[in-house]
Each structure stands twice: as C-alpha cells, then as structure tokens.
C-alpha cells in the first residue's frame, strides 16, 4: 500500500515533535525512519498507525492508497510491532497470534479450522511451531518479538509498522533477527516502516532511509545515497564515525575557518610526510579486534583522529603505539551550513 503524509505537525505542550513533515512510502517498500531520540520518528510512526493524531493544521493529510484517512487518533488496523513486544501475557503464543483473527466481527471471521491453519502457517514462518503452547513469560526476548511480528501479520495488514523492534535485544540476536526480517520482507513484501536509532540496522535492512532530526526530514534516499552522499553534516555524523578537521578555505572564501569531515576509512596513514598536506601526529592507541584495524592518532594541535585500515595493510606497515605518523585525507566533505545539536 502507498502511504502519503502531507504537512504533518505534532506538538506536545511547548515541544515540537514533528514540524511540517511530508513523506511518501511506496507500495512494497521497507522504509527506515532513522534519527536520534527526540527526532520525531516514533511520533510519526504512531501517527501513521492512528495511535496518535497530528495537530489540526491547514493541509495536514494522511492518505492510504490515495484515500484520505480520518486524522483523529483511533487505531487503523495496521500491523504494529512494539519495542517491548506488548504480548498478551494471559494467552499462549498460539492464542496471541490467533487473537486478531478471533475478534473479527462474525461475518468476516474465519472458521476455527481456517484460523488454526493460518496460525500454524505463521508459527512455521517465525520458526516457533514447537512452543505454540507456551506463555510469553516463558520465552526469550527474540522469541517474543517474533511472536509479536506473527501476531501483527496474522490480520494480513496492508502496512507493517515496527517501532524499534530490536531495541531491547542483545547485539547478536538483533543481527540475526534483522536479517531474518529482511528475508521475510523479500518473501512477503508488505509495505513496512521501521523506526530505529541504529544506523547499522537501517543501512542493512531498509530499501530507503529517511533521516530525521528535530521533527524534520533531513534527507531521504537509498542506504547508498545517504551513506555516500550525505546532504548535511548531521546525516554524515549520524550514519557513522567522522573525523573533524578545522581548515582554512582558500580561493573563493576569504580565509574563513571551515570544518572538513572525513570517515575513518577515508584517511591514510604513512611514515613519510610526502607531498601535499598531511597532518603529523603520534599513534596513541591501536585496536585490531574487529573487521578493520583502528588507529588513534593525536595531532600536535591536540585533536584525536580515528583511522581505519584493512588488516593486511596494517600488518604490512607494522604500526605501533608511540610512533609518529602522517595522516592524509583521501576523501572528505565540507558542508556549507553546519548544525548545532
């Protein structure tokens, strides 16, 4: 289903959670709303679900497949997955999943055999057939979240909304589950909106990322676009580690100080100063546990630079803490307007 949000604002007392946001989510897409806490991403999700109402402003509209929705709060029969699962604790896993089917008005309700078949199908989808008879208190966090997802999918919702679904889980379970979610979405492309503050999660799972800040959309685009071509300093900072250099602009600008941003893997370390501009510094820390080797360099100006390099190159160079090195920037970005948090 196609979702269009037009001029959506929401304020709580004096706090503006959403400030004139317009957004389109296309049929079958998995969109991640990414932003720090307080950026309005959860409020936006709740407004799509109908769990919250936008401020009554001129032009504020929510359209599902073009049809205008009543803006007042009132749940809209969407699949909603909560961060803390929100399972019904007095019901078994089976009954939790079956709940949405059992409470339908009599005319629309499937008969018992159909309900059983549908729940069994969902149980095999979440790979929990063997524990259908257990209660939520007997499950692990990851299992609970899968049950919550199956419960949301049982009513065959036209959209699936996920509010930080993996936020309460361990790092490992979280990774497994988000890959599983991605595969599930490839198999069953329900239009989905995922709220997260974890940039890695968004980059890995989503078809499209909407980066939010202070109630506004900062940038939207594919993971590649937002990661490699951030439009603002905020997006660049939020999507990964960044080194800040203070530099004096030459040419057009008259010697004003600007900030240059470079990702740790876009820096190069060498022992020779060579030609061009390089920053001289001392290696203070070397960290090799992980996918890349990480080196911390303290400059003479008192700043710390983070450099990442591949393990084989790191081994070939044999850098150790205490050495003096030169850091050169391979790729960097300058944003005209900077932001303050």
């Amino acid at each position: 289903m196609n979702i269009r949000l037009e001029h959506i604002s929401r304020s709580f007392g004096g706090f503006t959670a959403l400030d004139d946001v317009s957004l389109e989510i296309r049929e079958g897409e998995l969109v991640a709303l990414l932003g720090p806490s307080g950026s309005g991403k959860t409020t936006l999700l709740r407004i799509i679900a109908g769990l919250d109402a936008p401020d009554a402003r001129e032009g504020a509209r929510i359209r599902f497949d073009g049809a205008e929705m009543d803006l007042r709060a009132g749940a809209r029969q969407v699949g909603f997955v909560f961060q803390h699962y929100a399972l019904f604790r007095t019901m078994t896993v089976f009954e939790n999943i079956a709940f949405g089917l059992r409470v339908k008005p009599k005319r629309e309700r499937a008969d018992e055999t159909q309900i059983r078949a549908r729940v069994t199908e969902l149980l095999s989808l979440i790979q929990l057939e063997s524990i259908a008879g257990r209660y939520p208190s007997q499950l692990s966090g990851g299992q609970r979240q899968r049950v919550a997802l199956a419960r949301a999918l049982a009513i065959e919702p036209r959209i699936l909304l996920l509010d930080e679904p993996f936020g309460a889980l361990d790092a490992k379970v979280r990774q497994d589950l988000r890959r599983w979610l991605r595969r599930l979405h490839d198999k069953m492309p329900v239009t989905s909106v995922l709220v997260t503050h974890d940039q890695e999660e968004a980059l890995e799972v989503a078809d499209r990322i909407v980066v939010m800040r202070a109630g506004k959309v900062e940038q939207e685009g594919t993971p590649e676009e937002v990661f490699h071509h951030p439009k603002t300093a905020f997006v660049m900072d939020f999507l990964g580690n960044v080194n800040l250099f203070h530099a004096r602009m030459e040419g057009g600008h008259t010697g004003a100080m600007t900030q240059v941003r470079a990702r740790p893997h876009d820096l190069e370390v060498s022992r020779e100063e060579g030609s061009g501009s390089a920053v001289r510094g001392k290696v203070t820390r070397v960290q090799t546990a992980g996918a890349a080797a990480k080196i911390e360099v303290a400059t003479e100006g008192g700043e710390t630079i983070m450099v990442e390099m591949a393990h084989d190159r790191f081994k070939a160079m044999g850098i150790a803490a205490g050495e003096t090195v030169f850091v050169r920037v391979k790729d960097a970005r300058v944003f005209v307007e900077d932001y303050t948090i």
Partner: protein
Amino acid sequence: MGEAGARTWKQYSILPGFGLTLGYASLYLSLIVLLPLAALASGVFSMTWEEFTRAAFSARVMASYRVTVLASLAAAAINAVFGFIVAWCLVRYRFPGWRIVDAIVDLPFALPTAVSGIVLTTLYSPNGWFGAPLAKLGVKVAYTELGIVVALVFIGLPFVVRTVAPAIEDLDPETEQAAGCLGVNRWQTFVRVLLPALMPALTSGFTMAFARALGEYGSVIFIAGNRPMKTEITALLIVTKLEQFDYQAASAIAAVMLAGSFGLLMAINYFEWRRGSRHRSAA
C-alpha cells in the same frame, strides 16, 4: 561443615538474615495468631460431640451462618464490581479533587465500625435520608438482610480498591494499543485482554473484602435489627453467648466460623493459583 550444611533443606541465599527473620516470623505469628486460636480449640476440645453440635449447629446458629456468609458474598461481589470501577477511575484519570476522592476511599478503614453502623442505620431507617424515599418504593433496608449487605459493602470497599489499583497501574498501555491495531474494540479489549490480566488482583481484593465481612461486627449490629433466624449474624451470636458466660458455646460457634472461613479462603486462593499459575511461571 559447609558441605553438610548445603545438604539440608535450607537453600543458601544471597540475602542474609533468613534464620533470624524466619524465627521472628514464626514467633510473632504464634503469639499473635496461633496462640489465641489454640486457646479457642482447647475450649472446643473440652466439649463432648453432642454439646458441640447443640451449640454450633442449632437452627438459630445455622440461620446465622447462612445470613453471614450470603450477605458477605453479596457484599464482596458488589464491591468487586464497583470497587473495580473506583480503582479504574482513580488510576486512569486525574480530575479536580482527585486527592480527596482517593482519601475518601480509605475512610471505611479509619472510621470506628460502630460509628459507621450508627450513621448507616440513621440514613437507611424508614425515616432517614435514604430510608424514607426507599420506603415509599416499598424497599426496606434497615433491620433487614439488605441492611447487613449495605454495612458490609461500606466496610469492604477499600480492600478491593487498594488491591486492584496497583494492578491497573501496572497494565502496559501498549498491550491495549496492540489490541487496537488488531482491530479490537474497547469493550473486547477490556474483556479479553485487560480483565484476565487483572483477575488475580481482583480475586484477592474480593477475598479480602469477603473475609473482612465474615467477621464484621460493629457496623452490622446496629443496622441488622438482629432478629433471630432472620438478621442475626454469627459474630453477634458469639458475643451474646459470651455475655451469658457460655464460653464453650461461644468457642464452638467461633471454631466452626474459623474452619469455614479458612476453608473458603484456601479454596479461592487455590482456584486462583491454578488458573493463573500457567502464565505466571517464569522461564
């Protein structure tokens, strides 16, 4: 030493003071609860079986059991419904005067029961504020079984409110929203999601109100009229026997009362435990 100790029934716990607190708890319970009950039992055991049945199961005493238990059940059931509504309202909404209403709930705890008995009697007597209009409708409250129920409802209310309110506070608002997203209306959400989660608290509130009502004396005797075979409660009969220095009969009735209420409480707790044990058991 440590090995031998570890094999005993006592589980080693990271919390210190198990021995001390268990000792204190059992001493305290023995002195305050069990000793008086033992004295009661010894009074009963000195009677022959015929004496006992004559004292404890005569027609007049049986009628008093009946009226006491039925009125208590009715009062506890009424409180379970309306106390629930009061608790719901107090937890979920904030309104001007909220603090006052919250304090009023506890009033029946604080008021001497005799005072509440006299006030209720004055209100519900045929020429009282409530009694007069009710009398016109042909409903008599004071000096009837209905009056007993009214008094027991009054004293039982805080038990239900104070046990159910924390449970309502603990409800996760997201489960309600989850139900809403699944297309469930508010009433179904209440019946199928909230009520099952609140059942344990509601049952224990009901049980406490019921237990309190079984033993209530002060507030009931004024409004009940105390007509033998009709509106005479068991607690009053016990006092009457005591006033006649018939200690044995008094203890016989008291013992039956005690066994009965203990059995009922155990039964209610057992059913609640069985109903709820499945989903409460942790992984």
